[in-house]
């Protein structure tokens, strides 16, 4: 059930990432990485093992669709999934602010790993446009925290509605 849920979340994130996100967060000022949000969420919920596996699977799927080198995104997301899983199991990351900080750090680590790996592979100097990358990291963190908070709030909202109907 957990595996199916994670896989479904990755597929939905990829579909949204490629169809909706380009129209909403398009252009030279960066984009949003919804797949990374799924990886962070899975790692926070289920720990480092699930986090790294989700990261590997989601990253490789993303690599395949983008036409880039398969494994670069996977490697970056594996590292992020593992680190977030470790942080989630060692510290209390239950409130919005810590989650936002984790998302922000995850997006930053992912960007550095991803661009760094490509710089190594291409044997070129690492060129990062701080404005574009910064915007992308911030957008991912903001959208991510909204989505995660929404997912956590939905069961409570449904419960309250049921209780109101009961009375």
């Amino acid at each position, binding site marked *: 059930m957990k*595996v199916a849920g994670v896989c479904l979340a990755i*597929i939905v994130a*990829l*579909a*949204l*990432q*490629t*169809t*909706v*996100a*380009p*129209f909403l967060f*398009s*252009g*030279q000022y*960066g*984009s*949003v*990485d919804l*797949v990374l949000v799924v990886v962070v969420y899975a790692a926070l919920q289920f*720990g*480092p*093992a*699930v986090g*790294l*596996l989700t990261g*590997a699977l989601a990253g*490789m*799927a*993303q*690599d*395949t*669709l*983008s*036409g*880039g*080198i*398969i*494994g*670069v*995104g*996977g*490697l970056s997301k*594996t*590292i992020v999934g*593992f680190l977030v*899983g470790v942080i989630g199991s060692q510290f209390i990351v239950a409130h919005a602010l810590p989650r936002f900080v984790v998302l922000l750090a995850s997006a930053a680590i992912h960007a550095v790993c*991803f*661009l760094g790996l*490509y710089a190594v*592979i*291409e044997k*070129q100097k690492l*060129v*990062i*446009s701080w*404005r*574009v*990358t910064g915007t*992308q990291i911030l957008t991912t963190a903001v959208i991510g925290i909204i989505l995660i908070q929404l997912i956590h709030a939905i069961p409570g909202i449904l419960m309250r509605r049921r209780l109101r109907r009961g009375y």
Partner: protein
Amino acid sequence: MLDIHRRTGYLLLTVLLVQVLLISLQINTSSGTKLFQATVFGVFSQLQLGASKVFGGVRGVWDGYFDLRNVKQENDRLKDQVSQLELQLQLQQALARRGAELEQMLQLRQTTSLKTLAASVIAGDATGYFKTVTIDRGSSNGLQHDMAVISSRGVVGRIVETPSIATAKVQLLIDRSTGAGGIIERSGVGGFVQGTAVGDPPLRMDYVTNLADVKVGDRVVTSGIEGMYPQGFLIGHVETVTQGAGLHKEIRIRPVVDFRALQSVLVVLDRPTPATASPTKAPSTTASPAPTPPAAAPPVTTPPATGTPGAGPPASASPTAGSPAAAAPRTGGQR
């Protein structure tokens, strides 16, 4: 899930190792599209098509209903615009007639129109770091690898990888691992236009000597030297020009195509004849084919895919001003 929590460290190492091996395998691959990539792209593109249709439907409702609010004012404004454009059209038609007469007088060849196919953009890039889009036309529509993609404003990019039956992936010109031969229209100076993906402006022109005549605002058009893009199509305008530290200028180009709002494109089904290396002054055009060069052009061989992603043009590819012969973009699905 699985009993893997106690062995997370080993699991991490295994997963990382597998992916490093996978990356290594791909770097060593010499050319061609990978079967795995083609299969996954083919399958997932169907999902993208479905999602795009759903999203398109929602957008259609939004556009068709909620955006009707200011239609009256917009209609009046558009009517005024149409009147002005009709006037301009008459002037242009008169100029065109005069041009045609002059062309006949000079016994030049007639302009041949390109065979194109309209396509809609159904999906963007999965990572946000690359600049690719997916279009709703594929191999069943006659699309092939390396076909040029244009829009009404100018050059968009090229088809990368083997298209699936119903969809194809287009690598945008602003992607950092693609490029096209370009010419400064005013002075005829040639060079290699390359994407920077995350830069602003997102295009640069390489291999233009410091002695070349390039000014801010100059129009940059395709040279067609690589045999992929039709000659004379507008790429963009020069935004900054600085003297480089070495032999070449540092030129940044603002593309005319708004890649953020790309919805409809045209795929050029004809393979254009490679242009000559001589720096002819390219015709002024906006998504209209350039006249065929008078002289028969020798075929230009594009270099095979190196398999090294994003590798820059070969060291030998440093055309001097007005000689963009070596500025051929890399081919193949590999970045």
